[in-house]
């Protein structure tokens, strides 16, 4: 009797154990771009990102998206200029997709392949290190996207005829919770 029971139990329960999909939702986030000019160092911050992550068949795909106009550099004039320079009204959303192996999610550093869509262009960054910290059932993932103006065909804004640096690294700090 017990043997029959066990067989039936396994027949029904096995597909459940095979169902390994895990879904994550972005709980909190801080995205900060840094812009450098000989006369100015500027950080633009947004907390309005939304995100979702799905791990399926050993592969994780995380998507974060944020409205371009949600970045605040502390100067409304500069922010409007940023939106203009990055074609933010035409392409209002910046999206970042990170892909990595599900096995990597347990380590303190995740090396992810990133795909960033911004200003109507798509740029790929391979093997970008992301730091991972677990707190309770939440996971904090942070890292820096080594973005440049030229990656997205952005004409570098200038001040007093001196253009900003080509590098505009974006610091991404995210907290995820399981769905």
């Amino acid at each position: 009797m017990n043997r029959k029971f066990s067989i039936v139990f396994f027949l029904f329960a096995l597909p459940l154990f095979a169902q390994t999909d895990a879904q994550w939702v972005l709980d909190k986030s801080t995205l900060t771009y840094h812009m450098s000019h000989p006369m100015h160092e500027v950080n633009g911050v947004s907390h309005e990102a939304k995100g979702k992550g799905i791990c399926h068949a050993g592969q994780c795909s995380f998507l974060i998206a944020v409205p371009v106009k949600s970045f605040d550099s502390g100067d409304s004039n500069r922010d409007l200029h940023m939106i203009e320079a990055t074609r933010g009204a035409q392409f209002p959303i910046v999206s970042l997709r990170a892909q990595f192996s599900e096995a990597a999610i347990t380590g303190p550093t995740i090396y992810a392949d990133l795909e960033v869509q911004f200003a109507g262009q798509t740029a790929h960054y391979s093997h970008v290190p992301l730091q991972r910290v677990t707190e309770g059932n939440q996971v904090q993932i942070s890292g820096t996207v080594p973005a440049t103006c030229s990656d997205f065909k952005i004409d570098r804004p200038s001040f007093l005829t001196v253009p900003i640096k080509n590098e505009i690294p974006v610091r991404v700090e995210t907290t995820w919770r399981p769905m």
Partner: protein
Amino acid sequence: MGACRTTGLKRLALCCFLISTTRLCVAQEVQNATVMSSVAATIVPTQSSNSADLPSAPEPADEIAQTGRADQTPATAQKQQGQTNQQQQKPETTPSLGDLGFTPQQTQADAQMQARLNERTHMLKVHQTLGLITTIPMVATLITGPQAKAKGRNGEPITEPTAANLDFHIALGGLTSGMYWTTAYYAIFAPKIPDVKPKGAIRLHRDLEWVHGPGMIITPLLGIMAYKQENAGEKVHGFASYHGPAAYVTAAAYGTSIVAVSWPIHWKFWEK
């Protein structure tokens, strides 16, 4: 024996029911996700040119038109692209923008706004360049001011300025005034962006226009009064005597306005 078999069957039935319930819940979740994705696909267009298996950010209306879909409205084209992607891939394996819950207003491309921003930036760049150039005749006018002024105390012989000095000062003042108002034109008539509250250094820059703007009206008027008094052989008196102070206050406000919009300044040209 019979009772034992009945109990075993009951346990088995209970076990099956519990497992089936769990499976039904999972199925419902998947169904929900599919429904949500299909709803989202109508909101967010996803067509990646670089990545065949991943959905992409919204494309602008003009780019969609370039792909040969000019006969469709952007929204229709985007919707169809989203639906095509929906069919091509399993929505539950990779998240799409539609899953994130952005409103259509947040994801909708606005070519008109982009054109407005471009126009605004163009006009403000001209404003910036002209504003900086205007400082040259402004400073020169301030420097030549004392040479265009009659000297001497009341009751003593008055030394009139030379005609050349006076004319040069008037010409510089006129040039400064013309350039100033041209500079102001590009700021005043630059397209306004709705729902943007001035914040940061731009606020002081804009507030100071209430000082140097009136200053650039009053100073030339007082200058004309002073000129007429000097031409009449009088020492400058009354309101006209404030021509100099008005000019200095105006220039100081103007200079502060330039510094304010550039603040905070980090000088590090020596760093690469």
